[in-house]
């Protein structure tokens, strides 16, 4: 699975995010206070404005701390009833319609059917719920104002914060219920859609295996071993290779991300084959990711591998038949976590610079290295399969041969070399720093390269090496990937090789996948209610949709704000569009361009601030984890959950203050 944005461990992420959160909140508060004071000063004079501002803060604080759960619950229930009155159930009808017609879009012959189904149901559900919650939340308070219902409510002893919180929680509750029902329907849809059985008949199979002599020893008539192989019938756009063992049990070999069990049954002289349901498809693998770095063809530490000309530079390539390698450093490798073996799973890129043997994959090897002692063993030789998960189990014990065990000693950068690096020009220095940052830190020192040293007799005489005793340092181990075919290349990114620790429950993973959609829904509801406290319904909707779109395209907006895109800022781009100018060439010099660029500077600054305040909606979707069969980690859930909570809190406070300052609420 492609992971373009690396995920930080929770306790590394928390302080950074908390600091950023407090900074933004403080800035917002400061801006709000200054703005409030200025408005009050214009209306009531500077001294009175001070008193008014102070009172507003004090009242707001009191309002916030004196929230009554009972009143909030009552208002939440009111919102739920309000939603039911607005026929939210219609959305179910739309959803059922979509599910009914989904079969027309989903290719049953897809090589990765789970990915296809998940990437359909999850976004479909998510978008529907987001649209529903958007409509409910943005029109609620404006409708109350229009129908004067809010005037009746504010005559009661209810705080503005309770109204806002009640609305938010109400719509979140409605969204949650809808999401839960849709999730259940989707789960059944996915299970039913993926479930299939192939037909296997006697005619599809042929007997294999060494034929044995008849027991009497005289007859030369061969006897069947009972082993069979063949091709299954076609279902869901694919067939499987069938292998049945002598005892009548076998499997339909793995293809399209699954396999089936098969049992041969003979009754009354008639042989039938019973094929089981697909297995290995609905999984939630728990991966242990390592930190990736590279060494070049001379085994020198390198920031990256080679770029083979791919437009998408996600994978970095290593040259075959050389000393170049991609190195993953793993932590947490203990006998308890991996009692039987070290299951390495890889999805490598392959780049051929010449055709070679078309019928065979490009060979490669996996080395296991002790990061402390440098003791290295050639653990596996394999042929790469592209765009498929290749499973290589590294055993716990290795038999030593004259050439498979040696040391890869780390050569550390000397102080003198470091000093020499500092003397280089700015560009080189920057590169060196980046390389250092990405290079291995071993005992606090950076590694420049590796040198091979033959293992001594003490090692060779052992006969066997133990993975945990000899190659794991504490809980750390390194796995080196090398390509063995000269002038051919392997491509790898950090998430392309991991250790498959265990399998979690697919159902729970499915629920977690919907939790991602739920978080998006919470954000939309919160933004919708917040905007509706001071904007009319349609305008609040536009604002929320704007936040939604901005949030989904946050990265692009930030690129525009930073001026990293082609064609200049918004104003310059408009000129280019109308004058048919190439985006890559310099804009025509002149007053027009100067003015446009000045406007862009202001727009980009504002865009930058706005984009940084927006939640990155796309990040809350974890459909890929689910679709690719990876467990959604608790770290992911906690980090994103906390982010949503932070947004919710800020939007609630903001909404409460705004509603409180409106005339109607007084």
């Amino acid at each position, binding site marked *: 699975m492609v992971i373009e944005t690396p995920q930080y461990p929770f306790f590394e992420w928390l302080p950074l995010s908390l600091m950023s959160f407090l900074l933004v909140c403080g800035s917002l508060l400061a801006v709000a206070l200054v703005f409030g004071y200025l408005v009050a000063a214009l209306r009531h004079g500077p001294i009175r404005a001070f008193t008014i501002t102070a009172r507003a803060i004090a009242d707001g604080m009191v309002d916030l701390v004196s929230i009554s759960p009972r009143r909030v619950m009552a208002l939440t229930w009111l919102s739920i009833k309000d939603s039911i009155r607005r026929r939210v159930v219609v959305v179910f009808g739309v959803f059922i319609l979509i599910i009914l017609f989904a079969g027309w*879009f989903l290719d049953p012959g897809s090589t990765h059917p789970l*990915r296809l189904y998940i990437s359909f149901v999850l976004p479909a559900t998510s978008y529907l719920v987001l649209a529903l919650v958007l409509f409910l939340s943005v029109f609620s308070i404006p409708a109350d104002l229009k129908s004067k219902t809010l005037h009746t409510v504010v005559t009661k002893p209810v705080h503005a914060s309770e109204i806002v919180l009640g609305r938010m929680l109400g719509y979140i509750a409605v969204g949650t219920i809808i999401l839960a029902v849709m999730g259940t329907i989707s789960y059944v849809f996915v299970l039913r859609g993926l479930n299939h059985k192939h037909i296997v008949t006697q005619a599809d199979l042929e007997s294999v295996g060494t034929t044995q002599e008849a027991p009497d020893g005289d007859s030369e008539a061969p006897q069947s071993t009972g082993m069979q192989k063949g091709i299954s019938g076609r279902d869901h756009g694919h067939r499987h290779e069938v292998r049945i063992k002598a005892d009548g049990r076998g499997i339909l070999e793995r293809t399209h991300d699954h396999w089936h069990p098969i049992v041969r049954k003979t009754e009354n002289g008639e042989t039938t084959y019973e094929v089981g349901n697909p297995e290995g498809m609905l999984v939630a693998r728990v991966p242990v990711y390592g930190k990736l770095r590279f060494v070049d063809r001379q085994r020198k530490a390198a920031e990256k591998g080679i770029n083979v000309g791919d437009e998408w530079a996600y994978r970095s390539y290593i040259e075959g038949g050389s000393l170049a390698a991609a190195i993953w450093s793993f932590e947490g490798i203990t006998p308890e976590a991996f009692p039987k073996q070290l299951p390495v799973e890889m999805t490598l890129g392959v780049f051929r610079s010449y055709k070679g043997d*078309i019928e065979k994959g490009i060979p490669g090897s996996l080395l296991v290295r002790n990061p402390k002692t440098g003791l290295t063993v050639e653990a596996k030789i394999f042929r790469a399969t592209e765009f498929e998960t290749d499973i290589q189990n590294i055993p716990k014990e290795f038999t030593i041969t004259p050439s498979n065990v040696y040391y890869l000693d780390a050569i550390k950068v000397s102080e003198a070399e470091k000093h020499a690096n500092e003397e280089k020009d700015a560009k080189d220095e920057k590169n060196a720093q980046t390389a250092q940052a990405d290079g291995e830190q071993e005992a606090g020192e950076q590694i420049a390269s590796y040198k091979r040293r033959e293992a001594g007799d003490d090692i060779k005489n052992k006969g066997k090496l133990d993975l945990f005793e000899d190659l794991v340092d504490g809980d750390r181990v390194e796995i080196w990937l090398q390509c063995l075919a000269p002038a051919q290349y392997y491509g790898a990114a950090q998430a392309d090789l991991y250790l498959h620790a265990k399998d979690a429950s697919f159902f729970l993973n499915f629920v977690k996948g919907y939790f991602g959609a739920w978080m998006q829904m919470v954000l939309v509801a919160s933004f919708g209610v917040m905007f509706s406290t001071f904007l009319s319904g349609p305008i609040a909707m536009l604002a929320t949709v704007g936040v939604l779109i901005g949030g989904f395209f946050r990265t692009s907006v930030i690129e525009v704000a930073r001026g990293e895109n082609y064609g200049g800022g918004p104003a310059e781009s408009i000129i280019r569009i109308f004058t048919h100018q190439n985006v890559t060439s310099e804009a025509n010099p002149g007053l027009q361009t100067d003015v446009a660029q000045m406007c862009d500077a202001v727009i980009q600054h504002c865009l930058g601030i706005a984009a940084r305040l927006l939640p990155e909606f796309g990040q809350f979707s974890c459909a890929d984890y689910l679709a690719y069969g990876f467990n959604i980690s608790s770290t992911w859930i906690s980090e994103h959950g906390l982010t949503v909570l932070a947004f919710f809190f800020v939007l609630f406070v903001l909404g409460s203050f705004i509603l409180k300052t409106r005339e109607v609420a007084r």
Partner: protein
Amino acid sequence: MSRNRSFRRKIIYLVLIGLLLPALYVLGHPEAQSTEDAKGSRGGWLAQIRSEQKLSQAQLGEIDPTSETIKLATFGLRPIAANLLWHKAIECKKKKDWTNLSATLNQLTKVQPNIIEFWRFQGWNLAYNCSTEFDDYRQRYRWVIKGIEFIKLGQNYNDREPRLLSNIGWIISQKIGRADEHKQFRKMFREDDDYHGMARSKSERDNWLVGKEWYQKAEDLVDTEDVPITGDSPLIFRSKRPMCQMNYSEAIEEDGTFGEKAKTAWETAESEWYELGQLAIPTTRIDPTTKKPLEIRLGDRERHLEKAAEMSKEIDSFAPGLRKKILDEKRAKLTAKQLKAMNTPPPERSEEQYRIAAEAEALLVVTDKEVAGKVEGKNRSRALDLAKQARLERERAKMTNSYRSIVNYDHWLLRAQVEQTDNLLTARRLVYEGDEAFASGNLPEAGEKYRDGSVAWMNVLAQFPQLIPDRDTAEQVDHVISQYQKTLDQRDELFPADFALAPFVQIQVADANETPPARDFAKKAQKALAEGDLDAARASFRDSIAAWNKVLAAVPSLRLLSDRKTVKEITDLTRAYAAVLKNTGQPFPENFGLESFIWVQVEHDALTQAARKAADKATAVLDKKKPSKEELAAADKGFQQSLADWRKVLDKFPSAIADKSIADELMMTIEHYKQVLQKQDKKLPEKFILQDVVDRYGKAKKS
């Protein structure tokens, strides 16, 4: 606002709607089919235009309810949806997310089912671009099939589109049949039950034949449904089917199928090219009489030329001898320079003479018009009319010829005719069997097959000499020679003296860039020698040898003596060079360029074999502790015989003295001879037969 005003406004709206309805009906009411009970109608104005332009969904192809629903559901935002989906598809491809690429294309098919370029582009994208992203050829094949199926789906939505049918034919034939993995692809295609279903037998599952079926469908659509050909010119469009048959015939031979099946395949190919030659092909020129595109038939060129020749003959019959008279008059007007250029044989002409001769030849052309213009009497008008018609016939023939060259008609037709001959079928079978034997390491059989294959190929070239300049033929003959050479090389053998393809090797030598300078330098050297200028002769010989060395690189089979005539020419040259060096008192240089070429000849010379045999026998005496006098005398005689043979070898190949490996062997033999002499209390004779060798290498050995 009072209730009355509101009510009045509603009434106005209703009236307006009522007024608009008839107009809308006239414009847009749909077409209705006639039934038994009711007469149909042509529909409103819009329906009629749509029907005339064949734009209604029913006329375009299959109606897909999903697609129609989605088109309606997008509320006019279909182009935006299509744009977003295209963007997503491009992004998916960039990020190699094949599952979502398929899903996105699936969605796009519903959004723009009648955009032909969409189907063509994405079908090609799947079959050609996406497939190559996979390392495993089996997955590549799957994506090629995906691409084919994709365009097939498009064909269902657009069943009046020959371009899509043609595209399917192209991918099935060219992608499967020409990819790097074509051997594997063709095999998988034959065994792909899922693609073919059970209706098509395995023998019919050749990709070229299946591709041809799709081209045939495209042609049928054009011929029977009156659908215009778009995208391709009519000639290219029609030539794809016979080309598929040609490729099929070639491919089955590549797979090892010969005999009747291959013969029939080539016969079919010939008949299909012939059929193409009979088809009326519209040209870009407008016929002045009909004001329609002028039509030609590729097979009619000869007929046009014959007709023109007959007309010229008839014109000549009106005034016998007139044409020659005009020609003589024209010749008389040529300048001396022009005459000289024309009289110089073409190989000896300078560049300027070539140009002048070409101009002069153009001036000497006597046209029918010129002849007819001078015909007197009652036949004059007939002659002028004939001259005009003959010109038109020749123009038509010229145009036909240029259209033939677009599809290489002459070449393919000739090829189809030649390939079905027994000689070529035998040649191909023998070469195939030779390749198989070579690949399995059975070199004796491979050599035999290549030798017989060479004979068969030579028979083909003798039967069809027009094939000799053909590049494809040259490549195939070269394959036989180079494979035969590899086989002989590994067995340490030479080409037989009567090697059948030696004349072809001579052509290869003649075509090599360095041959003319090599021969020019040799001529210069001989001239200088005749003039007694030894230094100039030596320099020219050296240049000639350097040029011949490059020729040997271009025609490597010569190193194993594939053409004895050329070999003799080069060897004689080295002898002459050696003689000049000897006369100027210079030793033959070690690395003069052709040492390995000469070494091969020395190694395989009978005298060398005899010299070695005699020396080996004589050397055996040295292993004995106390050889008898008789034995020593016999050894002495043996050595003398050996050295005499070596002398003859060195006289035959004087440059061999510079060859280090030969020199080492000779010095070793001389050393052994000395030992035998010593044991007989003798010394080397004063006039030693190989004194030149001793002089050249003796000191070096001592030092």
